[in-house]
């Protein structure tokens, strides 16, 4: 790590993303409808991508980006599959 303001900003971003994940888990636990829960899982995936990217900056290694890319694709496909199941009652017709 280099200067003095980058670790502070990185810690702030870590705290923000962790609080966001807690709020998403609250909505996932509470959410009265299944659309709420799908939305919470989708947001949880996006927050996990942000967390992985922040870990990549903190350890200065580019090894985590494949994981982030994979998580983005799998999260999108999962959201589409959940919505299709809600709409049609089946995924592969």
């Amino acid at each position, binding site marked *: 790590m280099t200067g003095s303001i980058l670790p502070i900003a990185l810690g702030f971003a870590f705290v923000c*993303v962790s609080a966001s994940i807690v709020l998403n888990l609250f909505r996932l636990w509470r959410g009265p409808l299944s659309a709420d829960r799908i939305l919470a899982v989708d947001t949880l995936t996006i927050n996990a991508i942000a967390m992985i990217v922040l870990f990549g900056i903190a350890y200065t290694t580019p090894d985590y*980006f494949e994981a982030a890319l994979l998580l983005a694709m799998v999260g999108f496909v999962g959201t589409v599959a959940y919505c299709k199941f809600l709409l049609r009652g089946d995924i592969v017709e």
Partner: protein
Amino acid sequence: MTLFAEILVSALLVLGGVFVLVGSWGLAKLPSVMTRLHGPTKATTLGVGACLIASMIYFPFFSGTWSAHELLITLFLFLTAPVSANLIAKAHLHRQGRRIDPNPSDQIVDGLPPPLGTADWATFAGGTTTDTAIPGEADGDRRS
């Protein structure tokens, strides 16, 4: 130049963290599904985009390597966030509009008001045909 890059990366990280937190706060706080869709689809996507751009600026200056992975992730997220939001809204409308999944805990009624003309909304238009079968009615005997 390194100091300038560090300030830029720090500003983008703080901006991204604040936007991610605002999006998830909206997801937890807002009263109904249609309003809850606003937070994650706009604020969180922008926050993750800011974090990815910060990472894209960080690595050439402090590690010496450059990769297009961050740009790829940003592009993919910005392309797929509206699609998934649209699908979630459509699934919610079809469940709520058909009274399959009524929501007694919500104070705000989420159903669509009727359109001005004589026709129904386009997403409900094929409702009587087998094209948009209701889960639990038409598909129930097929699965059982």
